[in-house]
């Protein structure tokens, strides 16, 4: 008979830290069905789940108190706006779209897992980023006033409820992306934006974003390494290729600002981490003040950890090494 459904790891006798290891054997089960995985956890077959269905968070809190871990994670969920075409090349239209998104309801109410609202571009907790987190002034303005301002910005740009801005919002097919898209298109409706929702599977979605074939699209970025440049680099101007075309990389919205690029270049050459952080902060503020993207929320890590396990510590990279864990029977 063929292979099993998991990877098995056993303590190596030649590992230098083997005496300190508390766990002799680990099984990593690959379960794609999250509901089924939760069932297996509840039956005691699995001790740790590295994800769980968002709609089960309340159930877990009520019935398995303290076992569902939700913690900030280095990543940003955002909407890109295609700035190579009108009307999103207009900074005021981008501003209207961004300030009319009520981020506080996305995490707790739309998703139900308490993701934190994002107003900047570098996730909290990122390394080498001393200094105050970017927070725009409008974030503290009451939502009603923000909507009024957005309406005014839209009508200045020529869009009124009578002649609304008609726009397509693309996202890759996923229940959570859809919920957010529906909520946000409703928020935009009140400032005179008519949104057509368009979903496609992941490969098709990113193909369209890469090709610049969209107006507003959903995207997300999980940091490869804990450094502010990892998200900020996404907003650099594309690189001209030998055949004359532009390679925009992951800068799907084609945001381009020479000053921003200069700051990023300067930061890359700066050896003093404190000064470098200053340059990066400046770059972040510049891009965010120009509404280069619409950050929506900071990702969270979702784990379910059995009370038998000790040594599982929530952290921004969501890395938990089994070598630091113990399990009681």
């Amino acid at each position: 008979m063929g292979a099993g459904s998991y990877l098995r790891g056993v303590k190596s006798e030649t590992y230098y830290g083997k005496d300190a290891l508390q766990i002799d054997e680990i099984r990593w089960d690959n379960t794609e069905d999250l509901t089924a995985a939760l069932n297996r956890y509840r039956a005691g077959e699995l001790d740790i789940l590295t994800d769980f269905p968002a709609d089960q968070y309340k159930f877990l809190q009520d019935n398995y108190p303290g076992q569902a871990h939700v913690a900030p994670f280095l990543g940003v969920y955002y909407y890109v706006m295609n700035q190579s075409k009108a009307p999103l090349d207009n900074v005021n239209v981008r501003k209207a779209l961004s300030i009319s998104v009520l981020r506080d309801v996305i995490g707790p109410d739309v998703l139900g897992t308490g993701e934190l609202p994002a107003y900047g571009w570098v996730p909290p907790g990122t390394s080498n980023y001393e200094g105050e987190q970017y927070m725009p002034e409008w974030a503290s303005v009451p939502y009603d006033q923000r909507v009024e301002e957005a309406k005014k910005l839209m009508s200045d740009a020529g869009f009124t409820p009578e002649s609304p801005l008609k726009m397509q919002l693309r996202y890759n097919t996923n229940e959570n992306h859809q919920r957010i898209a529906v909520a946000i298109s409703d928020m935009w409706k009140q400032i005179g934006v008519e949104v057509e929702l368009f979903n496609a599977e992941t490969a098709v979605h990113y193909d369209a974003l890469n090709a610049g074939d969209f107006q507003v699209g959903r995207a997300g970025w999980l940091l490869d390494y804990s450094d502010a440049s990892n998200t900020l680099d996404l907003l650099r101007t594309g690189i001209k290729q030998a055949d004359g075309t532009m390679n925009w990389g992951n800068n799907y919205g084609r945001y381009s600002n020479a000053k921003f690029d200069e700051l990023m270049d300067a930061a890359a050459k700066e050896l003093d981490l404190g000064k470098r952080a200053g340059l990066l902060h400046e770059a972040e503020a510049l891009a965010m003040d120009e509404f280069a993207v619409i950050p929506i929320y900071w990702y969270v890590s979702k784990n379910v950890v059995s009370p038998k396990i000790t040594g599982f510590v929530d952290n921004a990279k969501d890395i938990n090494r089994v070598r630091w864990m113990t399990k009681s029977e």
Partner: protein
Amino acid sequence: MLGYALRRVLSAIPIVFITIAVCFFILRLAPGGPFDGERALPPDVLRNLREYYNLDKPLPLQFVDYILGVLRGDFGPSMVMRDFSVARLISIGLPFTLMLGFAAFAIGTAAGLIAGALAAFYQNKWPDYLLVFVVLIPLVIPNFLMANLAQLVFGVYLRWLPVGGYQPGAILNLVMPVLILSMPHGARVARLTRGSMIEVLGTNYVRTARSKGLGTRLILARHAIKPALIPVVSYLGPGLSYLLTGSLVVEQVFALPGIGKYFITAALNRDYGLVLGTTILYVFIILALNLLVDIVYAWLDPKVRYR
């Protein structure tokens, strides 16, 4: 008989070819490719990858290359699960899927035949009503719901059976998946058997046998079973191919190491080679089983052979 079988085998060849061609071109016409993901690749890397995987040539030429490869038994590499060839991935998952499918087939068919025959025998009495009702349940409740309910009841609440996962030799882990998979199949077999058995029991020759004074058991065994089986047998082929190709939901829910998950993820990832490989395998299974059924059918009913 042999000529009949040979004709059927030969007629399957164009079907396989047409399926490959349709699948190949539809897959390429769909937007998105195997290298589109959340992160854009640099153009040079993309160009090299396309060259490496033979995706830079004109489409008809790629098709010819692919067909020539298949004729040599080479299904190419997986474009997303690097380091694996399509044939290797299939050979890892297929034995498990076959085992799951055949087990469900054997159990479902046996249970369906017995239940159907009993219902026909007790037609319009309480065992019949009970059975007709019970048989409806797996037909109206979808697999994944049934599987999740079974996990909750037998795994989480009662703790009789493991909820999911599998390791070689863990028979208990197979009980729920096999039963869940076999239920809709068993239900269809039971309905077919009941229907055709009732028809056969009402025929003149059964009445004649009864008037001769033959006992019920003898009538069932000698006269009623074989003709009553014909519609059932014609369903068994598609039924088995459905079990072998349709086990992906069950494999997914119970976290089992079959080929079902490759098929789903390959289609979503645009893993051209893997989609084609699994499709060809499925087509092959369906054709082979239909062929087998036709031959059994010809054996059961001589009229078929000369048509």
